[in-house]
């Protein structure tokens, strides 16, 4: 057990993966000498050499496409996308190649690619540096998508993602990089699966589902609500595609109420899929329609306004009140049932 920051935990996980498998290579912009703009790859080029930690030309499609070629050749590339908003030039290679190659070749070609994406807002950055594009990828068949919320998971799941023979998008909540936590580096990687959701706070009145950067916020909401005598069960999804609906379903069968919170825009976001799937699975156990507390349907705003866009403790608690039929901001709204 040692205490380390979130960012350091990913670094340690990458290092471990590189030690264990010489086919693991890292690629990205500024990840070598600089160690990445967030220093996640700090020291790795120095220790493993520039043939395993590649500073690439400034071209995301090029990075992704050459990573596919390296996969053809038996490598396990780990690609860093510098910021969420810079993944789109690689979208074609991800959707048409990374996601489909295994299916296309009936399993002959594996694409064990890991795509690391620092994502989410709250760090006071300009445009394109604070986005939450995960829903584009969870809707893309052939990809796996995970998001981590604490140093221990970060350490373990980066290794599980790299070990997976399927391509994995690994979303890192950049505003939590400096959060510290205990990390057990001796843990058995096979003891857990990155596919499983985790109940991080137990509760009985309402199920609050989230992932990545909002997990601590949700946990704080549970603490705050307990002052009001409300017991919130918080689930950290960890895997966003596929989602471990069995765990969510089990919780909702118990609580009868569901809230989902994420930073991404509401319409077509992951919250919709969770609400729809859980409604399908346990409609008769639901006491209230699933409630979504999310970012608005707007481009990510300039930083002076970003905390209006981002769900926070108060908005989540208002959503909890809504799910529980308690007085809330929309109580008086006409035409709204919930």
């Amino acid at each position, binding site marked *: 057990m040692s205490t380390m920051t979130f960012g350091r935990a990913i670094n340690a996980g990458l290092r471990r993966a590189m030690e264990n498998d010489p086919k693991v*290579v890292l690629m990205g912009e500024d990840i070598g000498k600089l160690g990445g703009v967030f220093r996640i790859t700090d020291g790795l080029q120095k220790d493993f050499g520039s*043939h395993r930690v590649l500073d*690439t*030309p400034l*071209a995301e*499609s*090029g990075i*992704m*496409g*050459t*990573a*596919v*070629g*390296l*996969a*053809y*050749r*038996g*490598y396990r590339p780990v690609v860093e996308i510098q910021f969420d908003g810079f993944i789109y*030039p690689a979208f*074609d*290679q991800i959707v*048409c*190649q990374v996601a*489909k190659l*295994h*299916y*296309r*070749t*009936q*399993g*002959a*070609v*594996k694409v064990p690619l890991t795509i690391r994406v620092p994502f989410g807002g709250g760090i006071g950055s300009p445009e394109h540096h604070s986005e939450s594009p995960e829903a584009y990828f969870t809707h893309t*068949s*052939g990809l*796996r998508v995970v998001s981590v919320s604490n140093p221990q998971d970060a350490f373990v799941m980066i290794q599980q993602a790299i070990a*997976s*023979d*399927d391509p994995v998008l690994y979303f890192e909540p950049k505003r939590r990089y400096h959060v510290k936590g205990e990390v057990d580096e001796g843990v058995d990687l096979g003891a857990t699966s990155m*596919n499983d959701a985790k109940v991080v706070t137990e509760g009985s009145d309402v199920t609050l589902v989230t992932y990545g950067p909002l997990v601590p916020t949700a946990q704080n909401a549970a603490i705050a609500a307990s002052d009001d005598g409300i017991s919130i069960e918080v689930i950290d999804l960890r895997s966003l*595609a*596929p*989602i*471990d*609906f*069995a765990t969510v379903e089990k919780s909702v069968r118990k609580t009868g109420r569901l809230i989902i919170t994420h930073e991404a825009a509401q319409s077509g976001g992951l919250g919709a899929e969770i609400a729809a799937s859980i409604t399908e699975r346990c409609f008769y156990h639901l006491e209230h329609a699933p409630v979504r507390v999310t970012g608005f349907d707007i481009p990510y705003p300039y930083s002076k306004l970003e905390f209006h866009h981002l769900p926070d403790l108060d908005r989540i608690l208002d959503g909890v009140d809504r799910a529980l039929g308690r007085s809330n901001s929309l109580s008086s709204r006409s035409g709204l049932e919930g």
Partner: protein
Amino acid sequence: MPLNNDADATQDELVQLIAPNGERRSNAAYDRWVSDVDDAALQALYEDMIVIRRIDAEATALQRQGELALWPPLLGQEAAQIGSGRALREDDFVFSSYRENGVAYCRGVDLTDLLRVWRGNASAGWDPYAINMAPPQVIIGAQTLHATGYAMGVLADGADSVAVTYFGDGATSQGDVNEAMVFAASYQAPVIFFCQNNHWAISEPVGLQAHVPIAHRAPGFGIPSVRVDGNDVLACLAVTREALDRARTGGGPTFIEAVTYRMGPHTTADDPTRYRDANELEDWAAKDPIARLAALLDARGLLSAEVADSVKATADDVAARLREGCISMPEPQVLDVFKHVYSEPNSWLDRQQDSYEQYLKYFDSADADTAASNSSREVNR
């Protein structure tokens, strides 16, 4: 915003070893790359081209007869594909577009595998590792990056294989192709960019994509390039061998522009009479890649009736096997639709497959029960 067509993207001098009339042209720089090509080898190249043209014709016929959904003919591009394809070593790896059936033939593809995609039975006709050739890439230009990445891997492995990527003149406009050149130059990857400039990208003439010869682009990225007569099989062999040698010996990437012509439609779904002149086609027919090698062979007494008959017999046999393989291709199984999306279990998809299996079962039994009422339901399928 009318198109400026002043500059001609086809002005430059070409490497040519066989003139359109069949004369062997000596070339100080490139003769040495084909000095080992003896009479038998020339005859073999001829047979290859005849066979692949025959495959192309047979597949086109199969499409017309409804046995294939689509076919992208390579008619006219035989020399570019056979010349380059025959230069490769088994451990080289090819990343092509959809039109390189001649290259696949050189790689030793199973004939039936050539047709799976076009019959609608598969998204990739062959196991890439069986013939060291990726499946046809539909997304224009995407494969050039795969080749470059593969070549970076070869370099890291300390091997001397080469990745060869094929693409068209139109593809050179795509960002990916240009990024591939950036990466290839950066890492000095052993990759060959083999562009078949067949003068058309569906209905768009090459002049729309490029105002100067396409081969001029690579040097700006730090990549040597060569412009070759793409209808001259010997010249295509020579320039490819030179590029392979450079790549194997640490010299990095090469760009080859093979100037040729797409004599057929873009695919069997296309109607080129809507956009191109019959005259242009005639001009190019005079430079036919097979006719010119035939003329050379003939002049050298290498195309006896016996030889011609033997070549024809081979082509007939190949065509027959192709047709037979097409028609007897087994139908895919329903549940194949769910296979290989992931290499590990996936709870979402597994549930969908399970539901669909139940649906199929339910439907079968419902069918049996109420055949009458269900028949109305099937009308719309």
